[in-house]
């Protein structure tokens, strides 16, 4: 078994580390790079709590051997805020009480980021489809959907929902 020198660009910064064959992108982020925003829920690709953006596309990072994405661009929830200033999606989640236990939140937010990058004016149904791979066991889906719609409005310059 051989570990390989692997380099990925995470939230704009190049990070190089040794990756064993079984090291997934999720484990590399959490255990080698100290980025614990993405969560290990099911390790089956079913819960979405590990969702990050891989070259701009949302992926379940628990299913990606990190050796296969050497050189890729990764975006995680840690890269969204600007210091203490939350991103528009994060702020909408906070304002709309869309975080309960918080475990699913980073994955939800990254799925929302992927949706809004592609579709700045989604319908409720499109938001529901976009987060269909993200499980919230607090079952707080309604405020999450509302928060994403609210973030879309903010991003379009229409102001926050009251």
């Amino acid at each position, binding site marked *: *078994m*051989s570990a390989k020198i692997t380099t990925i660009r995470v939230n704009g910064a190049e990070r190089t580390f040794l990756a064993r*064959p*079984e090291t*997934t992108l999720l484990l590399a982020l959490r255990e080698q790079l100290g980025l614990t925003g993405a969560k290990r829920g099911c*390790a*089956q*690709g*079913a819960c*979405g709590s590990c*969702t990050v953006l*891989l070259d701009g*596309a*949302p*992926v*379940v990072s*628990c*299913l*990606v*051997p990190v*050796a*296969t*994405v*050497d050189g890729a661009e990764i975006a995680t929830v840690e890269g969204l805020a600007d210091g203490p200033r939350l991103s528009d999606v994060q702020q909408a989640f906070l304002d709309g009480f869309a975080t309960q236990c918080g475990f699913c939140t980073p*994955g939800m937010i990254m*799925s929302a980021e*992927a*949706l809004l990058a592609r579709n700045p004016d989604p319908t409720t149904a499109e938001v*529901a*489809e*976009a987060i*269909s*791979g*993200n499980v919230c066991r607090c079952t707080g889906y309604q405020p999450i959907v509302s928060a994403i719609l609210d973030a879309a409005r903010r991003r379009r310059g229409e102001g926050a929902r009251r």
Partner: protein
Amino acid sequence: MLTEIHVPDDVPAVLSLVAAGARPLGGGTVLMPWFNDHASPPTELVSLRRAGLAGVHRAGPAWVIGAATTLSQVEHDPRLEVLSPVVRSIASMPVRSLATVGGNLFARQPHGDLAVALVALAATATLADPGGTVELPVEDLVAGGPRPGLVTAVAVEPPAPGTFRYLKAARRRHNSASLVTVAATVTESGGVVTGARVALGGVGARVVRAHAVEAALLGRPFTDATVRAAGQAGLSEIAPADDAYASAWYRTRVFPVHLRRALLGR
């Protein structure tokens, strides 16, 4: 235990590694859940990510889809519009960004809805090994057990407008395995069905080519009564299983309903 992950830059290298025993890894959405949760014998994987097997091009009347093309790429490719609703019925966006066309052919039922559609569309697959390539119908590929070699591409001709039908019944609107999947191409002329090719998912260990359904449609007017009779005929060729999504009884019971909804839209 994963002992090595190869990420070769070209297809010949992939084929020689596969021939030597490495397991091909497309998007990892089938293999990686297993490796994440199980102890396994020493295993080498060969990733298709950089091998040049992703992408779509035209070859005569057909679109040729590289085996490593992701389901998301298919979903958003306007040339493959006919397959967009099929792909959108599979899993979730973070999975579709990884899952590949080639890999989905081998997803076990009640997953693998793309294969159901490709059988109905009479798609062909290219199977390669270091000695060369062969073309074979996707129907034959998914009907049997594992074959040596690697699927490198799928070719599908766009159906005539209005002839393709697809319906996946599931427990949830998005991101759920099939209860019953119906894909069909149906042509009519002179008030009767002149061509029918019907494939079913969720109702057997493998994708079912529904010959009895097709026979019950051909030469008859495309009406409720004909489709009802086709549904009854189809009961002879389905063998659903009990699983976490539905019982075999339930799938059998609702199959004629979903066949009717798929074919007639009501």
